Protein backbone atom coordinates (compact mmCIF):
# COMPACT_ATOMS: atom_id res chain seq x y z
CA UNK A 1 0.00 0.00 0.00
CA UNK A 2 1.26 3.44 -0.81
CA UNK A 3 2.23 5.81 1.99
CA UNK A 4 -0.23 8.42 0.74
CA UNK A 5 -3.03 5.85 0.99
CA UNK A 6 -1.91 4.86 4.47
CA UNK A 7 -1.79 8.47 5.56
CA UNK A 8 -5.26 9.06 4.19
CA UNK A 9 -6.55 5.93 5.93
CA UNK A 10 -4.99 6.80 9.28
CA UNK A 11 -6.01 10.45 9.20
CA UNK A 12 -9.52 9.37 8.34
CA UNK A 13 -9.61 6.96 11.26
CA UNK A 14 -8.38 9.69 13.62
CA UNK A 15 -10.87 12.19 12.23
CA UNK A 16 -13.89 9.92 12.59
CA UNK A 17 -12.89 9.07 16.16
CA UNK A 18 -12.31 12.58 17.43
CA UNK A 19 -13.05 11.92 21.10
CA UNK A 20 -10.72 8.95 21.31
CA UNK A 21 -8.00 10.83 19.45
CA UNK A 22 -8.28 13.82 21.78
CA UNK A 23 -8.17 11.65 24.91
CA UNK A 24 -5.06 9.86 23.74
CA UNK A 25 -3.39 13.12 22.88
CA UNK A 26 -4.35 14.52 26.27
CA UNK A 27 -2.33 11.81 28.03
CA UNK A 28 0.73 12.68 25.99
CA UNK A 29 0.13 16.43 26.39
CA UNK A 30 -0.10 16.24 30.19
CA UNK A 31 2.97 14.04 30.54
CA UNK A 32 5.16 16.20 28.31
CA UNK A 33 3.83 19.45 29.76
CA UNK A 34 4.37 18.42 33.39
CA UNK A 35 7.91 17.21 32.86
CA UNK A 36 9.03 20.28 30.95
CA UNK A 37 7.50 22.65 33.49
CA UNK A 38 8.76 20.89 36.62
CA UNK A 39 12.27 20.39 35.33
CA UNK A 40 12.32 24.03 34.18
CA UNK A 41 11.36 25.15 37.67
CA UNK A 42 14.07 23.01 39.24
CA UNK A 43 16.83 24.20 36.99
CA UNK A 44 15.58 27.78 37.21
CA UNK A 45 15.88 27.56 40.96
CA UNK A 46 19.41 26.26 40.67
CA UNK A 47 20.37 29.05 38.30
CA UNK A 48 18.76 31.66 40.54
CA UNK A 49 20.68 30.56 43.61
CA UNK A 50 23.96 30.36 41.73
CA UNK A 51 23.41 33.87 40.41
CA UNK A 52 22.54 35.21 43.84
CA UNK A 53 25.74 33.90 45.33
CA UNK A 54 28.04 34.87 42.51
CA UNK A 55 26.45 38.33 42.69
CA UNK A 56 28.27 38.82 45.94
CA UNK A 57 31.64 38.79 44.18
CA UNK A 58 33.60 35.78 43.07
CA UNK A 59 36.84 36.64 44.89
CA UNK A 60 35.09 36.59 48.21
CA UNK A 61 36.13 34.60 51.25
CA UNK A 62 34.04 34.59 54.42
CA UNK A 63 35.34 34.28 57.94
CA UNK A 64 32.52 33.35 60.27
CA UNK A 65 32.76 32.56 63.98
CA UNK A 66 32.64 28.97 65.17
CA UNK A 67 33.24 25.73 63.36
CA UNK A 68 30.64 24.80 60.79
CA UNK A 69 29.49 21.39 61.94
CA UNK A 70 31.79 21.71 65.01
CA UNK A 71 31.22 21.38 68.75
CA UNK A 72 28.59 23.53 70.38
CA UNK A 73 28.14 24.72 73.94
CA UNK A 74 25.24 23.21 75.89
CA UNK A 75 23.21 26.34 75.09
CA UNK A 76 23.27 25.29 71.48
CA UNK A 77 24.95 28.52 70.40
CA UNK A 78 28.61 28.60 69.58
CA UNK A 79 30.40 31.38 71.43
CA UNK A 80 31.59 34.05 69.10
CA UNK A 81 35.32 34.46 69.64
CA UNK A 82 35.91 36.46 66.48
CA UNK A 83 36.94 40.03 67.46
CA UNK A 84 37.35 43.33 65.66
CA UNK A 85 41.03 43.01 66.44
CA UNK A 86 41.20 39.85 64.35
CA UNK A 87 39.94 41.88 61.42
CA UNK A 88 42.59 44.50 62.10
CA UNK A 89 45.30 41.83 62.22
CA UNK A 90 44.09 40.43 58.93
CA UNK A 91 44.08 43.87 57.38
CA UNK A 92 47.64 44.51 58.49
CA UNK A 93 48.99 41.19 57.21
CA UNK A 94 46.97 40.83 54.00
CA UNK A 95 46.87 44.45 52.86
CA UNK A 96 48.77 43.62 49.66
CA UNK A 97 46.56 40.79 48.47
CA UNK A 98 43.07 41.41 49.87
CA UNK A 99 40.53 43.94 51.10
CA UNK A 100 39.21 43.17 54.56
CA UNK A 101 35.69 44.09 55.57
CA UNK A 102 34.48 43.13 59.05
CA UNK A 103 30.75 43.30 59.75
CA UNK A 104 28.91 43.64 63.04
CA UNK A 105 25.29 42.70 62.56
CA UNK A 106 22.55 43.76 64.98
CA UNK A 107 18.85 44.33 64.83
CA UNK A 108 17.39 47.62 66.03
CA UNK A 109 14.45 49.99 65.83
CA UNK A 110 15.00 52.93 63.50
CA UNK A 111 13.07 56.18 63.93
CA UNK A 112 12.63 59.30 61.85
CA UNK A 113 10.38 62.01 63.22
CA UNK A 114 7.15 60.17 64.12
CA UNK A 115 7.81 57.14 61.92
CA UNK A 116 9.59 54.02 63.08
CA UNK A 117 10.78 50.82 61.45
CA UNK A 118 11.31 47.71 63.55
CA UNK A 119 13.64 44.81 62.99
CA UNK A 120 15.99 46.66 60.71
CA UNK A 121 19.28 44.88 60.19
CA UNK A 122 22.11 47.19 61.29
CA UNK A 123 25.44 46.41 59.65
CA UNK A 124 28.50 48.05 61.22
CA UNK A 125 31.28 47.89 58.67
CA UNK A 126 34.26 49.64 57.15
CA UNK A 127 34.37 52.20 54.35
CA UNK A 128 35.54 49.64 51.76
CA UNK A 129 32.34 47.57 52.07
CA UNK A 130 30.96 48.61 48.62
CA UNK A 131 34.23 47.42 47.01
CA UNK A 132 33.95 44.03 48.67
CA UNK A 133 30.21 43.29 48.31
CA UNK A 134 29.67 43.96 44.64
CA UNK A 135 25.92 44.34 44.80
CA UNK A 136 26.17 47.46 46.97
CA UNK A 137 25.54 50.35 44.59
CA UNK A 138 24.52 53.77 45.83
CA UNK A 139 21.42 55.39 44.43
CA UNK A 140 21.81 58.70 46.23
CA UNK A 141 24.56 60.33 48.27
CA UNK A 142 27.78 58.56 49.16
CA UNK A 143 29.16 55.78 51.34
CA UNK A 144 31.21 56.64 54.41
CA UNK A 145 34.96 56.78 54.01
CA UNK A 146 37.51 54.46 55.57
CA UNK A 147 38.41 57.25 57.98
CA UNK A 148 34.77 57.76 58.99
CA UNK A 149 34.52 54.00 59.42
CA UNK A 150 37.46 53.89 61.76
CA UNK A 151 36.62 57.03 63.72
CA UNK A 152 33.00 56.14 64.35
CA UNK A 153 31.29 59.03 62.61
CA UNK A 154 27.55 59.25 63.27
CA UNK A 155 26.57 58.68 59.64
CA UNK A 156 24.32 56.05 58.03
CA UNK A 157 23.68 54.62 54.57
CA UNK A 158 20.14 53.24 54.32
CA UNK A 159 18.62 50.48 52.24
CA UNK A 160 15.59 50.84 49.95
CA UNK A 161 13.06 49.37 52.36
CA UNK A 162 14.14 51.68 55.17
CA UNK A 163 14.12 54.61 52.75
CA UNK A 164 10.56 53.89 51.61
CA UNK A 165 9.27 53.19 55.12
CA UNK A 166 10.71 56.31 56.73
CA UNK A 167 10.98 58.91 54.01
CA UNK A 168 8.47 57.94 51.33
CA UNK A 169 9.62 60.15 48.51
CA UNK A 170 11.39 62.92 50.41
CA UNK A 171 15.12 63.24 50.10
CA UNK A 172 16.75 61.58 53.11
CA UNK A 173 20.23 63.02 52.64
CA UNK A 174 21.25 65.14 55.61
CA UNK A 175 18.24 64.04 57.70
CA UNK A 176 18.78 62.82 61.24
CA UNK A 177 17.52 59.36 62.18
CA UNK A 178 17.63 57.41 65.41
CA UNK A 179 19.20 53.96 65.24
CA UNK A 180 18.66 51.97 68.43
CA UNK A 181 18.67 55.26 70.35
CA UNK A 182 21.76 56.83 68.76
CA UNK A 183 21.39 59.71 66.32
CA UNK A 184 22.86 59.39 62.82
CA UNK A 185 22.89 61.57 59.74
CA UNK A 186 21.80 59.85 56.51
CA UNK A 187 24.49 60.29 53.85
CA UNK A 188 23.45 57.74 51.23
CA UNK A 189 20.82 55.32 49.91
CA UNK A 190 21.69 51.88 48.51
CA UNK A 191 19.99 50.69 45.31
CA UNK A 192 17.43 47.93 45.67
CA UNK A 193 19.07 44.52 46.01
CA UNK A 194 15.98 42.32 46.31
CA UNK A 195 15.83 39.40 48.65
CA UNK A 196 18.09 36.41 48.96
CA UNK A 197 16.52 33.20 50.28
CA UNK A 198 13.53 35.25 51.39
CA UNK A 199 15.58 37.70 53.45
CA UNK A 200 15.01 41.31 52.49
CA UNK A 201 18.42 42.68 51.59
CA UNK A 202 17.06 46.21 51.53
CA UNK A 203 15.79 46.43 55.10
CA UNK A 204 19.27 47.39 56.25
CA UNK A 205 21.25 50.35 57.53
CA UNK A 206 25.01 50.50 57.13
CA UNK A 207 26.95 52.46 59.76
CA UNK A 208 30.69 52.78 60.52
CA UNK A 209 32.00 49.80 62.44
CA UNK A 210 33.41 51.91 65.25
CA UNK A 211 30.01 53.52 65.75
CA UNK A 212 28.31 50.11 65.88
CA UNK A 213 30.92 48.92 68.36
CA UNK A 214 30.16 51.86 70.66
CA UNK A 215 26.41 51.85 70.09
CA UNK A 216 25.90 48.16 70.85
CA UNK A 217 28.86 47.73 73.17
CA UNK A 218 30.37 44.77 71.36
CA UNK A 219 33.82 43.68 70.33
CA UNK A 220 32.77 40.63 68.32
CA UNK A 221 32.21 40.66 64.59
CA UNK A 222 29.68 38.44 62.83
CA UNK A 223 31.50 38.12 59.55
CA UNK A 224 34.81 39.20 58.12
CA UNK A 225 34.74 39.48 54.35
CA UNK A 226 38.05 39.03 52.56
CA UNK A 227 38.11 40.06 48.93
CA UNK A 228 41.17 38.79 47.07
CA UNK A 229 42.61 41.40 44.70
CA UNK A 230 42.80 38.83 41.93
CA UNK A 231 40.88 35.54 41.46
CA UNK A 232 44.11 33.51 41.47
CA UNK A 233 44.97 34.90 44.91
CA UNK A 234 41.87 33.40 46.56
CA UNK A 235 43.65 30.25 47.80
CA UNK A 236 46.68 32.24 49.04
CA UNK A 237 44.46 34.69 50.91
CA UNK A 238 42.64 31.78 52.47
CA UNK A 239 45.87 30.11 53.65
CA UNK A 240 47.37 33.31 54.99
CA UNK A 241 44.17 34.37 56.72
CA UNK A 242 44.04 30.95 58.32
CA UNK A 243 47.55 31.24 59.76
CA UNK A 244 46.94 34.81 60.94
CA UNK A 245 43.77 33.80 62.78
CA UNK A 246 45.34 30.67 64.27
CA UNK A 247 47.89 32.78 66.13
CA UNK A 248 45.17 33.88 68.54
CA UNK A 249 42.32 31.47 67.93
CA UNK A 250 41.92 27.69 67.68
CA UNK A 251 40.58 25.87 64.66
CA UNK A 252 37.19 25.51 66.33
CA UNK A 253 36.70 29.24 66.74
CA UNK A 254 36.23 30.20 63.12
CA UNK A 255 35.44 28.94 59.65
CA UNK A 256 37.01 30.18 56.46
CA UNK A 257 34.94 29.61 53.42
CA UNK A 258 35.53 30.60 49.83
CA UNK A 259 32.67 31.59 47.55
CA UNK A 260 33.22 28.39 45.64
CA UNK A 261 32.76 26.29 48.76
CA UNK A 262 29.60 28.15 49.68
CA UNK A 263 28.35 27.68 46.18
CA UNK A 264 29.00 23.96 46.18
CA UNK A 265 27.36 23.53 49.58
CA UNK A 266 24.23 25.28 48.41
CA UNK A 267 24.31 23.62 45.02
CA UNK A 268 24.26 20.29 46.86
CA UNK A 269 21.14 21.31 48.69
CA UNK A 270 19.49 22.57 45.53
CA UNK A 271 20.33 19.48 43.54
CA UNK A 272 18.47 17.43 46.16
CA UNK A 273 15.54 19.72 45.49
CA UNK A 274 15.92 19.32 41.75
CA UNK A 275 15.98 15.56 42.14
CA UNK A 276 12.76 15.79 44.15
CA UNK A 277 11.13 17.90 41.44
CA UNK A 278 12.47 15.49 38.83
CA UNK A 279 10.85 12.67 40.81
CA UNK A 280 7.50 14.40 40.67
CA UNK A 281 8.04 15.02 36.97
CA UNK A 282 8.87 11.35 36.44
CA UNK A 283 5.64 10.39 38.21
CA UNK A 284 3.61 12.66 35.94
CA UNK A 285 5.37 11.15 32.97
CA UNK A 286 4.52 7.63 34.14
CA UNK A 287 0.91 8.66 34.87
CA UNK A 288 0.66 10.27 31.44
CA UNK A 289 2.20 7.15 29.93
CA UNK A 290 -0.31 4.91 31.69
CA UNK A 291 -3.10 7.14 30.37
CA UNK A 292 -1.81 6.81 26.84
CA UNK A 293 -1.34 3.07 27.33
CA UNK A 294 -4.92 2.60 28.58
CA UNK A 295 -6.54 4.57 25.81
CA UNK A 296 -4.42 2.84 23.19
CA UNK A 297 -5.13 -0.65 24.55
CA UNK A 298 -8.86 0.01 24.80
CA UNK A 299 -9.22 1.79 21.49
CA UNK A 300 -7.30 -0.78 19.52
CA UNK A 301 -9.04 -3.66 21.29
CA UNK A 302 -12.48 -2.20 20.59
CA UNK A 303 -11.46 -2.02 16.95
CA UNK A 304 -10.70 -5.74 16.74
CA UNK A 305 -13.95 -6.13 14.80
CA UNK A 306 -12.91 -3.38 12.42
CA UNK A 307 -9.58 -5.13 11.93
CA UNK A 308 -11.48 -8.33 11.12
CA UNK A 309 -13.63 -6.49 8.59
CA UNK A 310 -10.64 -4.88 6.94
CA UNK A 311 -8.96 -8.28 6.65
CA UNK A 312 -12.15 -9.77 5.21
CA UNK A 313 -12.12 -7.05 2.56
CA UNK A 314 -8.56 -7.88 1.59
CA UNK A 315 -6.25 -5.98 3.95
CA UNK A 316 -2.96 -7.75 4.55
CA UNK A 317 -1.46 -7.96 8.04
CA UNK A 318 1.11 -5.39 6.96
CA UNK A 319 -1.63 -2.94 5.92
CA UNK A 320 -3.34 -3.22 9.31
CA UNK A 321 -0.11 -2.78 11.25
CA UNK A 322 1.04 0.18 9.16
CA UNK A 323 -2.29 1.92 9.66
CA UNK A 324 -2.26 1.51 13.43
CA UNK A 325 1.40 2.39 13.72
CA UNK A 326 0.84 5.54 11.72
CA UNK A 327 -2.22 6.46 13.77
CA UNK A 328 -0.28 6.04 17.00
CA UNK A 329 2.69 8.01 15.69
CA UNK A 330 0.50 10.87 14.47
CA UNK A 331 -1.42 11.04 17.76
CA UNK A 332 1.69 10.99 19.89
CA UNK A 333 3.55 13.47 17.70
CA UNK A 334 0.64 15.89 17.74
CA UNK A 335 0.18 15.45 21.50
CA UNK A 336 3.91 15.76 22.08
CA UNK A 337 4.18 18.96 20.07
CA UNK A 338 1.18 20.51 21.84
CA UNK A 339 2.66 19.40 25.19
CA UNK A 340 6.02 20.96 24.33
CA UNK A 341 4.39 24.22 23.31
CA UNK A 342 2.28 24.35 26.47
CA UNK A 343 5.28 23.41 28.61
CA UNK A 344 7.48 26.07 27.03
CA UNK A 345 4.67 28.62 27.33
CA UNK A 346 4.07 27.81 30.99
CA UNK A 347 7.82 27.90 31.70
CA UNK A 348 7.99 31.31 30.08
CA UNK A 349 5.09 32.61 32.15
CA UNK A 350 6.66 31.16 35.30
CA UNK A 351 9.93 32.88 34.45
CA UNK A 352 8.13 36.23 34.57
CA UNK A 353 6.57 35.74 38.00
CA UNK A 354 9.00 33.30 39.53
CA UNK A 355 11.97 31.44 38.19
CA UNK A 356 12.17 28.84 35.48
CA UNK A 357 14.66 27.71 32.90
CA UNK A 358 13.85 25.21 30.15
CA UNK A 359 16.30 22.34 29.87
CA UNK A 360 16.48 20.67 26.45
CA UNK A 361 16.99 17.17 27.86
CA UNK A 362 13.65 17.30 29.67
CA UNK A 363 11.91 18.17 26.41
CA UNK A 364 13.53 15.24 24.61
CA UNK A 365 12.96 12.84 27.49
CA UNK A 366 9.29 13.70 27.89
CA UNK A 367 8.63 13.64 24.18
CA UNK A 368 10.53 10.43 23.55
CA UNK A 369 8.94 8.60 26.45
CA UNK A 370 5.37 9.57 25.55
CA UNK A 371 5.81 8.73 21.90
CA UNK A 372 7.43 5.39 22.74
CA UNK A 373 4.63 4.45 25.13
CA UNK A 374 1.96 5.52 22.65
CA UNK A 375 3.47 3.61 19.78
CA UNK A 376 4.24 0.45 21.75
CA UNK A 377 0.79 0.22 23.28
CA UNK A 378 -0.89 1.32 20.08
CA UNK A 379 0.79 -1.33 18.00
CA UNK A 380 0.80 -4.32 20.39
CA UNK A 381 -2.97 -4.93 20.40
CA UNK A 382 -3.03 -4.28 16.66
CA UNK A 383 -0.39 -6.99 16.14
CA UNK A 384 -2.49 -9.36 18.22
CA UNK A 385 -5.67 -8.55 16.31
CA UNK A 386 -3.98 -8.78 12.91
CA UNK A 387 -2.92 -12.34 13.71
CA UNK A 388 -6.48 -13.52 14.28
CA UNK A 389 -8.31 -15.07 11.36
CA UNK A 390 -10.75 -12.54 9.86
CA UNK A 391 -13.77 -14.36 11.20
CA UNK A 392 -12.38 -14.58 14.76
CA UNK A 393 -11.66 -10.86 14.73
CA UNK A 394 -15.12 -10.14 13.29
CA UNK A 395 -16.79 -12.15 16.05
CA UNK A 396 -14.85 -10.28 18.75
CA UNK A 397 -17.12 -8.29 21.04
Amino acid at each position, binding site marked *: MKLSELLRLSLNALRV*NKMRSILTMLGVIIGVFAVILLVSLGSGLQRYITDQISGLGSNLIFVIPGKVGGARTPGGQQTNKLLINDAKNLENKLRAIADVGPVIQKSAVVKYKNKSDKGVSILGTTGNYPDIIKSTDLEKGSFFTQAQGRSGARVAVIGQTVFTNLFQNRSPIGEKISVGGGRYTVIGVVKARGSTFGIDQDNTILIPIASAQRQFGVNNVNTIYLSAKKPELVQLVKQQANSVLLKRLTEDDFTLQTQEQTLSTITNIVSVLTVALGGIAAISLVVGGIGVMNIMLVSVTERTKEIGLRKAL*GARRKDILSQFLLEAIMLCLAGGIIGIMLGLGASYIMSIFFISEVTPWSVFLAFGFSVAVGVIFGITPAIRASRLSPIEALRYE
Partner: protein
Amino acid sequence: MQKLNESVIVLTDITKAYGTEDVVTQVLHGVSLTINKGEFVAITGPSGSGKSTLLHIIGLLDVATSGTYLLHDKDVTKLTEDQQARVRNKEIGFVFQSFNLLQRANLMENVTLPAVYAGTPPKVRDTKAVELLTTVGLEDHLYKRPNQLSGGQQQRVAIARALMNDPVIILADEPTGNLDSKSGKDVMEVLKFLNKQGKTVVIITHDHHIAKEAERIITIKDGRIV
Protein backbone atom coordinates in the same frame (compact mmCIF):
# COMPACT_ATOMS: atom_id res chain seq x y z
CA MET B 1 -24.66 -18.65 -18.17
CA GLN B 2 -23.12 -19.91 -21.34
CA LYS B 3 -20.45 -21.99 -19.56
CA LEU B 4 -22.62 -23.72 -17.03
CA ASN B 5 -20.31 -26.56 -16.21
CA GLU B 6 -17.15 -24.57 -15.58
CA SER B 7 -16.54 -25.22 -11.89
CA VAL B 8 -15.47 -22.28 -9.77
CA ILE B 9 -15.49 -23.76 -6.29
CA VAL B 10 -14.50 -27.36 -5.68
CA LEU B 11 -14.46 -28.53 -2.06
CA THR B 12 -13.25 -32.05 -1.32
CA ASP B 13 -13.69 -33.71 2.06
CA ILE B 14 -13.54 -30.48 4.06
CA THR B 15 -13.54 -30.86 7.82
CA LYS B 16 -13.45 -28.23 10.47
CA ALA B 17 -12.88 -28.75 14.18
CA TYR B 18 -12.68 -26.13 16.88
CA GLY B 19 -11.18 -26.30 20.34
CA THR B 20 -8.13 -27.70 22.05
CA GLU B 21 -7.00 -31.31 22.39
CA ASP B 22 -9.32 -31.92 25.33
CA VAL B 23 -12.59 -30.54 24.00
CA VAL B 24 -12.92 -30.79 20.25
CA THR B 25 -16.06 -29.66 18.50
CA GLN B 26 -16.32 -31.11 15.03
CA VAL B 27 -18.34 -28.68 12.94
CA LEU B 28 -17.86 -30.08 9.45
CA HIS B 29 -17.45 -33.81 8.78
CA GLY B 30 -16.04 -34.11 5.28
CA VAL B 31 -18.04 -31.84 3.02
CA SER B 32 -17.53 -32.18 -0.72
CA LEU B 33 -19.19 -29.67 -2.98
CA THR B 34 -18.80 -28.23 -6.47
CA ILE B 35 -20.26 -24.89 -7.52
CA ASN B 36 -20.19 -23.90 -11.17
CA LYS B 37 -19.67 -20.53 -12.68
CA GLY B 38 -22.83 -18.40 -12.78
CA GLU B 39 -24.77 -20.57 -10.34
CA PHE B 40 -27.07 -19.22 -7.67
CA VAL B 41 -26.77 -21.57 -4.73
CA ALA B 42 -28.56 -21.43 -1.39
CA ILE B 43 -27.12 -23.35 1.54
CA THR B 44 -29.70 -24.07 4.21
CA GLY B 45 -29.86 -25.98 7.41
CA PRO B 46 -30.75 -25.57 11.07
CA SER B 47 -28.62 -23.34 13.25
CA GLY B 48 -25.44 -25.02 14.39
CA SER B 49 -25.38 -27.21 11.29
CA GLY B 50 -22.10 -25.73 10.14
CA LYS B 51 -23.45 -23.82 7.12
CA SER B 52 -21.87 -20.52 8.21
CA THR B 53 -18.53 -22.17 8.84
CA LEU B 54 -18.70 -23.68 5.36
CA LEU B 55 -19.33 -20.26 3.82
CA HIS B 56 -16.47 -18.73 5.83
CA ILE B 57 -14.14 -21.41 4.53
CA ILE B 58 -15.32 -20.77 0.96
CA GLY B 59 -14.69 -17.04 1.56
CA LEU B 60 -11.22 -17.68 3.03
CA LEU B 61 -12.29 -16.00 6.25
CA ASP B 62 -11.62 -19.23 8.08
CA VAL B 63 -9.30 -22.15 7.47
CA ALA B 64 -10.41 -25.77 7.06
CA THR B 65 -8.85 -28.36 9.38
CA SER B 66 -8.44 -30.79 6.50
CA GLY B 67 -9.53 -31.30 2.91
CA THR B 68 -8.80 -29.42 -0.28
CA TYR B 69 -10.40 -26.32 -1.73
CA LEU B 70 -9.87 -25.45 -5.37
CA LEU B 71 -10.90 -21.94 -6.39
CA HIS B 72 -10.57 -21.48 -10.15
CA ASP B 73 -8.55 -24.74 -10.17
CA LYS B 74 -6.04 -23.30 -7.68
CA ASP B 75 -5.55 -24.95 -4.30
CA VAL B 76 -6.14 -21.93 -2.05
CA THR B 77 -5.46 -23.81 1.18
CA LYS B 78 -1.78 -23.77 0.23
CA LEU B 79 -1.62 -19.99 -0.20
CA THR B 80 0.21 -17.71 2.20
CA GLU B 81 -1.77 -15.35 4.36
CA ASP B 82 -1.04 -12.38 2.12
CA GLN B 83 -2.02 -14.33 -1.00
CA GLN B 84 -5.28 -15.30 0.69
CA ALA B 85 -5.88 -11.63 1.51
CA ARG B 86 -5.47 -10.89 -2.18
CA VAL B 87 -8.01 -13.55 -3.14
CA ARG B 88 -10.51 -12.16 -0.61
CA ASN B 89 -9.86 -8.73 -2.04
CA LYS B 90 -10.11 -9.46 -5.76
CA GLU B 91 -12.15 -12.61 -6.29
CA ILE B 92 -14.69 -12.74 -3.50
CA GLY B 93 -17.33 -10.26 -2.36
CA PHE B 94 -18.71 -10.98 1.09
CA VAL B 95 -22.07 -9.82 2.44
CA PHE B 96 -22.67 -10.28 6.17
CA GLN B 97 -25.88 -10.71 8.12
CA SER B 98 -25.04 -7.72 10.34
CA PHE B 99 -23.82 -5.60 7.38
CA ASN B 100 -20.44 -4.90 9.06
CA LEU B 101 -20.13 -1.36 7.78
CA LEU B 102 -17.78 1.12 9.42
CA GLN B 103 -20.35 3.21 11.29
CA ARG B 104 -18.15 6.30 11.52
CA ALA B 105 -17.30 6.43 7.84
CA ASN B 106 -19.65 7.59 5.09
CA LEU B 107 -21.04 5.37 2.33
CA MET B 108 -18.35 6.35 -0.18
CA GLU B 109 -15.59 5.49 2.27
CA ASN B 110 -17.26 2.20 3.14
CA VAL B 111 -17.79 1.14 -0.47
CA THR B 112 -14.30 2.11 -1.66
CA LEU B 113 -12.51 0.24 1.15
CA PRO B 114 -11.79 -2.95 -0.88
CA ALA B 115 -10.40 -0.77 -3.71
CA VAL B 116 -8.12 1.02 -1.25
CA TYR B 117 -6.55 -2.34 -0.37
CA ALA B 118 -6.39 -3.26 -4.06
CA GLY B 119 -4.38 -0.11 -4.77
CA THR B 120 -6.96 1.42 -7.13
CA PRO B 121 -6.33 5.15 -7.67
CA PRO B 122 -8.73 7.41 -5.70
CA LYS B 123 -10.46 8.91 -8.76
CA VAL B 124 -11.13 5.54 -10.35
CA ARG B 125 -12.53 4.03 -7.17
CA ASP B 126 -14.70 7.05 -6.37
CA THR B 127 -16.29 6.93 -9.83
CA LYS B 128 -16.88 3.22 -9.41
CA ALA B 129 -18.39 3.70 -5.94
CA VAL B 130 -20.87 6.31 -7.21
CA GLU B 131 -21.80 3.93 -10.02
CA LEU B 132 -22.35 1.02 -7.62
CA LEU B 133 -24.31 3.05 -5.09
CA THR B 134 -26.50 4.26 -7.95
CA THR B 135 -27.07 0.66 -9.05
CA VAL B 136 -28.34 -0.21 -5.55
CA GLY B 137 -30.48 2.95 -5.48
CA LEU B 138 -28.55 4.98 -2.91
CA GLU B 139 -27.19 7.75 -5.14
CA ASP B 140 -28.84 10.36 -2.89
CA HIS B 141 -27.00 9.25 0.23
CA LEU B 142 -23.35 9.08 -0.88
CA TYR B 143 -21.95 11.02 2.08
CA LYS B 144 -24.34 9.82 4.76
CA ARG B 145 -23.26 7.50 7.50
CA PRO B 146 -24.62 3.94 7.65
CA ASN B 147 -26.58 4.63 10.86
CA GLN B 148 -28.61 7.25 9.02
CA LEU B 149 -29.99 4.52 6.74
CA SER B 150 -32.49 1.70 7.19
CA GLY B 151 -31.32 -1.89 7.52
CA GLY B 152 -32.26 -2.69 3.93
CA GLN B 153 -30.33 0.31 2.67
CA GLN B 154 -27.30 -0.64 4.77
CA GLN B 155 -27.34 -4.14 3.32
CA ARG B 156 -27.41 -2.65 -0.16
CA VAL B 157 -24.34 -0.56 0.77
CA ALA B 158 -22.67 -3.78 1.85
CA ILE B 159 -23.53 -5.36 -1.50
CA ALA B 160 -22.09 -2.35 -3.35
CA ARG B 161 -18.92 -2.75 -1.28
CA ALA B 162 -18.79 -6.47 -2.14
CA LEU B 163 -18.90 -5.55 -5.84
CA MET B 164 -16.18 -2.90 -5.65
CA ASN B 165 -13.34 -5.00 -7.08
CA ASP B 166 -15.52 -6.90 -9.59
CA PRO B 167 -15.33 -10.29 -7.90
CA VAL B 168 -16.64 -13.37 -9.69
CA ILE B 169 -18.14 -14.80 -6.51
CA ILE B 170 -20.60 -13.17 -4.11
CA LEU B 171 -20.96 -14.89 -0.75
CA ALA B 172 -23.82 -13.79 1.46
CA ASP B 173 -24.25 -15.01 5.03
CA GLU B 174 -27.94 -14.68 5.95
CA PRO B 175 -28.14 -11.40 4.01
CA THR B 176 -31.84 -11.01 4.84
CA GLY B 177 -31.61 -12.25 8.43
CA ASN B 178 -31.70 -8.79 10.01
CA LEU B 179 -34.24 -7.32 7.60
CA ASP B 180 -38.01 -7.11 7.34
CA SER B 181 -39.55 -9.15 4.52
CA LYS B 182 -39.90 -6.17 2.16
CA SER B 183 -36.24 -5.14 2.50
CA GLY B 184 -35.26 -8.80 2.37
CA LYS B 185 -37.03 -9.13 -0.97
CA ASP B 186 -35.24 -6.03 -2.29
CA VAL B 187 -31.87 -7.45 -1.30
CA MET B 188 -32.73 -10.77 -2.96
CA GLU B 189 -33.72 -8.91 -6.12
CA VAL B 190 -30.30 -7.24 -6.18
CA LEU B 191 -28.56 -10.57 -5.70
CA LYS B 192 -30.62 -12.18 -8.46
CA PHE B 193 -29.81 -9.27 -10.75
CA LEU B 194 -26.10 -9.76 -10.07
CA ASN B 195 -26.45 -13.47 -10.79
CA LYS B 196 -28.04 -12.65 -14.14
CA GLN B 197 -25.00 -10.49 -14.87
CA GLY B 198 -22.84 -13.58 -14.48
CA LYS B 199 -21.77 -13.52 -10.84
CA THR B 200 -21.67 -16.76 -8.97
CA VAL B 201 -23.82 -16.22 -5.87
CA VAL B 202 -23.80 -18.40 -2.77
CA ILE B 203 -26.15 -17.45 0.05
CA ILE B 204 -26.84 -18.94 3.41
CA THR B 205 -30.36 -18.85 4.77
CA HIS B 206 -32.65 -20.81 7.00
CA ASP B 207 -35.69 -19.18 5.36
CA HIS B 208 -37.27 -21.57 2.85
CA HIS B 209 -38.93 -18.75 0.91
CA ILE B 210 -35.57 -17.15 0.36
CA ALA B 211 -33.91 -20.47 -0.48
CA LYS B 212 -36.56 -21.21 -3.09
CA GLU B 213 -35.34 -18.21 -5.08
CA ALA B 214 -32.06 -19.97 -5.76
CA GLU B 215 -31.37 -22.40 -8.63
CA ARG B 216 -29.90 -24.98 -6.33
CA ILE B 217 -30.45 -25.65 -2.64
CA ILE B 218 -27.84 -27.47 -0.59
CA THR B 219 -28.98 -28.60 2.84
CA ILE B 220 -26.53 -29.17 5.65
CA LYS B 221 -27.24 -31.02 8.84
CA ASP B 222 -24.75 -31.81 11.59
CA GLY B 223 -21.83 -30.88 9.40
CA ARG B 224 -22.81 -33.04 6.45
CA ILE B 225 -24.60 -32.38 3.18
CA VAL B 226 -27.89 -34.21 3.06
